[in-house]
């Protein structure tokens, strides 16, 4: 035996791997082909160069699964059955075949990260996707949303994250592509997911006309299948692009070539993200094939087991795991909030994201009012998360001030600050991306917006006074 | 003054050479300046035939000077005591170096020391004061902390201080609290604060600068410039020593400061014209006359 393969005897088997030996059998990794996972130099402008996907691709070549959703045996399983040593839970991973390259590429909700070309999904908020730096959340990673105070803005984002998955899952009824897991005993959680924003009432009317026109000819339908899709109003496009650029600058990404790729990407990845209307509901509500609830008990041990079996049951899909209001006492009994229980659990989540790095993405929110940020518990949870954001809602005085400042433009009033503490991949590779008070959020009917923060300047007052002072 | 300097250095040398009978020498150190160089200075000075036993809780590699090296970190205290006692040589001086006595549990500390202390034997124990310590034992709430026990029974205490000339004390402490280890710490030149307890019951206190490169020890005299400040502290000094209350509370101090004394008022010339009157030579002025007040 090769001296380098270090085997440890005894009950506790350690995955002492060497030389990139991967748990998934002989060759589960296809070198250089999977975005971001091969060894291709990261600076290569690989993103725009990738073969653009035709809008109709999903569904044309169904992945190896039958219609009922029961997954067929993974391709690799037959080759290396010896790896199934049965009892040990950590060896379950050996039986799992992650999504193959083609499958990942075919997923309409997946696009390569604009920085690392890792496969990336939308959080359900286009603006949050932007401050994630990758234009989305890389699959195989987690984001932690902390909320200060007693407001509940984070539930909007947690629900949009789930909705986004359900909407994509329904794009092609024959080919379900996403599964949502919610860590909650509340089975009604999914009934409150927001629906896709249909546009203003004028837009809705116009869309109906277009749709009717299209129904006239089948040819029409095939050619412009993507036309009636609601978009962010195009009038603000240039302004938005400016903002994109500025946000990109914050991450040190001022490569103009990359920015120019954006409009093209919007066509290629048209179903990457949607805009959600928090006043509407997703109809029909997600069913048991689309969403799995994992209830909480007095220990996280069974939760991790259930999570892993659920992930494996849907192994050809993107898995969106949502953990709303982590450790909130109304759902989590006291033993779960001890450092040992909670941190072992979050560590296990991190381990799952790496183990199922081609399918699993996690969104977790936590109320800082109950678990303050200046504690070891939160710091450790942050260090185990790939992205960390903190929503800090404004107090009443600040809101009044903003309302006064934006007297004529009430939609401009922000609701609080967004602090960025970690960004996937970049932070753990050593970049310093702590951005306090650089962004503000506002939660509107049709979307959760995040923009650069600046205190509004009132027209009258101080500037004039200074000139007078000069005279004096 | 030179007399003080001389006698203090003599004392230090007697301690280094183990000529003072001292069962326990306590060295307190921090991450800013560890006891390493001070221990080396002992090794440099002790008689050649000293039986040096090194008790290691955090030293992996046996120091060259140690006659016996005991890896104590996974040993029961009973086994450790037995092993230490087995190394004892009654005909020479014994020096037992404990690299960190913080590793010995507070509840057994006193018993541990009494079971290893013998005639002709000195325990030289380092206590890391940077480590967090409990105010009181969890199990036995009244029981004193390890630091208190050690400083109570030690015959001499060497408190190790980084060479203060190099650092702003406050800034250094701020950095160390954040575990920022700045450069220039843990030097071969440093200071010690020596507390020596005499048999008479008197305790004397000296501060030295120790240069371990050339083995020079210089007494540092109390800073004269601080003396003016010291007078302010007489209040603290007298605290509890009299039956009178000589102290003023902060509130009282504030009230006292706020009282406007009349002469302050007189110094401000805000109230319009003042009568300025100077006596002249020819003025007829009778001190005895109560009606002669010119104002």
């Amino acid at each position, binding site marked *: 035996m090769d001296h380098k393969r270090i085997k440890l005897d005894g009950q506790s088997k350690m995955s002492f791997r060497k030389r*990139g030996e991967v748990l998934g059998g002989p060759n589960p990794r296809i070198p250089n082909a999977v975005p971001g996972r091969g060894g291709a130099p990261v600076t290569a402008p690989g993103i725009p160069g990738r073969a653009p996907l035709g809008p109709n691709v999903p569904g044309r070549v169904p992945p190896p699964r039958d219609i009922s959703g029961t997954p067929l045996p993974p391709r690799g399983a037959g080759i290396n059955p010896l790896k199934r040593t049965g009892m040990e839970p950590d060896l379950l991973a050996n039986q799992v075949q992650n999504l193959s390259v083609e499958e990942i590429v075919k997923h309409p909700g997946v696009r390569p990260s604009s920085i690392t070309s890792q496969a990336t999904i939308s959080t359900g908020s286009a603006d949050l996707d932007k401050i994630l730096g990758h234009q989305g959340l890389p699959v195989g990673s987690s984001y932690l949303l902390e909320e200060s105070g007693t407001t509940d803005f984070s539930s909007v984002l947690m629900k949009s994250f789930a909705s986004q998955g359900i909407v994509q899952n329904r794009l092609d009824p024959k080919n379900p592509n996403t599964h949502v897991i919610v860590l909650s005993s509340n089975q009604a959680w999914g009934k409150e997911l927001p629906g896709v924003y249909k546009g203003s009432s004028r837009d809705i009317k116009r869309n109906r006309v277009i749709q009717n026109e299209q129904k006239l000819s089948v040819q029409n339908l095939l050619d412009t299948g993507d036309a009636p899709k609601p978009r962010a109003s195009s009038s603000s496009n240039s302004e938005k692009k400016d903002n994109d650029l500025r946000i990109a600058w914050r991450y040190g990404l001022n490569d103009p070539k990359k920015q120019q790729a954006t409009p093209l990407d919007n066509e290629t990845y048209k179903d990457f993200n949607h805009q959600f209307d928090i006043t509407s509901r997703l109809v029909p509500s997600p069913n048991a094939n689309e969403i799995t609830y994992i209830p909480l008990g007095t220990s996280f041990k069974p939760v991790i087991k259930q999570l892993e079996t659920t992930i494996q049951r849907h192994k050809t899909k993107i898995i969106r795991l949502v953990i709303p209001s982590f450790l909130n006492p109304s759902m989590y009994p006291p033993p779960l909030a001890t450092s040992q229980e909670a941190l072992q659990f979050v560590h296990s989540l991190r381990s799952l994201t790496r183990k199922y790095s081609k399918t699993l993405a996690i969104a977790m929110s936590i109320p800082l009012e109950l678990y303050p940020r200046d504690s070891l518990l939160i710091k450790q949870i942050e260090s185990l998360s790939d992205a960390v954001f903190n929503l800090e809602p404004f107090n009443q005085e600040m809101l009044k001030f903003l309302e006064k400042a934006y007297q004529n433009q009430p939609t401009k009033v922000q609701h609080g600050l967004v602090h960025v503490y970690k960004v996937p991949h970049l932070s753990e590779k050593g970049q310093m991306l702590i951005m306090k008070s650089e962004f503000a959020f506002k939660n509107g009917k049709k979307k959760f917006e995040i923009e650069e923060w600046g205190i509004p300047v009132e027209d009258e007052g101080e500037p004039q006074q200074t000139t007078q002072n000069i005279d004096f | 003054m030179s007399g003080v300097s001389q006698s203090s250095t003599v004392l230090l040398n007697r301690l280094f050479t183990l000529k003072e009978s001292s069962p326990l020498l306590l060295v307190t150190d921090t991450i800013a300046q560890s006891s390493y160089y001070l221990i080396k200075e002992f090794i440099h000075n002790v008689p050649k035939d000293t039986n040096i036993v090194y008790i290691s809780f955090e030293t992996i590699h046996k120091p060259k000077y140690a006659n016996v090296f005991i890896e104590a970190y996974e040993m029961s205290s009973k086994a450790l005591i037995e092993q230490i006692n087995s190394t004892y040589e009654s005909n020479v001086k014994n020096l037992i170096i404990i690299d960190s006595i913080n590793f010995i549990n507070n509840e057994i500390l006193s018993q541990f020391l009494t079971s290893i202390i013998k005639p002709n034997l000195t325990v030289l124990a380092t206590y890391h004061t940077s480590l967090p310590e409990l105010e009181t034992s969890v199990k036995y709430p009244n029981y004193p902390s390890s630091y208190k026990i050690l400083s109570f029974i030690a015959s001499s205490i060497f408190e190790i201080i980084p060479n203060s000339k190099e650092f702003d004390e406050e800034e250094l402490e701020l950095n160390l609290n954040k575990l920022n280890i700045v450069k220039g710490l843990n030097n071969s030149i440093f200071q010690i604060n020596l507390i020596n307890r005499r048999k008479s019951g008197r305790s004397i206190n000296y501060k030295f600068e120790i240069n371990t490169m050339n083995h020079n020890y210089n007494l540092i005299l109390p800073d004269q410039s601080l003396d003016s400040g010291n007078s302010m502290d007489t209040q603290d000094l007298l605290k509890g020593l009299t039956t009178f209350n000589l102290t003023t509370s902060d509130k009282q101090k504030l009230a006292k400061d706020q009282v406007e004394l009349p002469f302050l008022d007189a110094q401000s010339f805000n109230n319009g014209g003042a009568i300025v009157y100077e006596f002249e030579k020819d003025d007829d002025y009778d001190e005895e006359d109560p009606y002669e007040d010119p104002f």
Partner: protein
Amino acid sequence: MSQQQDLNLFVDNSIIPQKVYRDEPLFGVITHTQGTSPSWLINLLIENALYGTCVINHEKNQHRQLRSNVVVISFLNDFDFYEKDLKRNGIEVNDNQQFHFIDLFTDLFQKINTPESIVKIFDQLSKTIQNIPNKKTILIEGIEFLLSSTGITSIQLLNQINKLNKIADALFIITGADKELIDIQHANPSLPEFKTLDFIIRLLHRSNIVLGLRPLETGRAKDITGTLTISKGTIPFDSLVVSEKEYLFFVSRETTKLFFR
């Protein structure tokens, strides 16, 4: 901006001096806080331990010669995390017989739970590493996490490190030192903050060299990531001399640069 500098830790301009592998073993502590993740530095240390070179230094093209085995033990990351970056630094770990990765991250808590199980893992580990022939450099990342996530005490954990320390020529412990991890509100020895502070101070009390990574006090800057402070540990080497200094460093996706402050 001042001139770009080489990384060196000792006055002889070396990073890990050759003497470490002869008769002056090294115990190093690397501390970091949020915003200054140490992975780039770990990668440079891996390279230097393996070959004696450093890819960000001027002489990066000098002939590489294998000198030490490197064992990386991580509680926070898997093999993939290191593989790609090392490859970018020109180290094909898959072809390298002297690079060993021990994944104590994946499914960690299915393997360990109690202090006893941690002790067992380390016993196995030290046996295994001992069997690796020749010189050994061990880097351990994220071990402090065990203090807050299990019932192990800081002294028990240090005793496990001792097992590896004995068989290593160079040992680096890489630990988070954010203020929240070491801020003690109540002096209760079972609190993770107490354990973590106790652990790190005791590590420092056996260190020969300390490397500290911190963001700038003033916050984020466009062209500076933070400071890297090189300082002596509490225990000096016999003859080797640490080159104490403070670098400013900048990590971007393409490069890592060092400057003098």
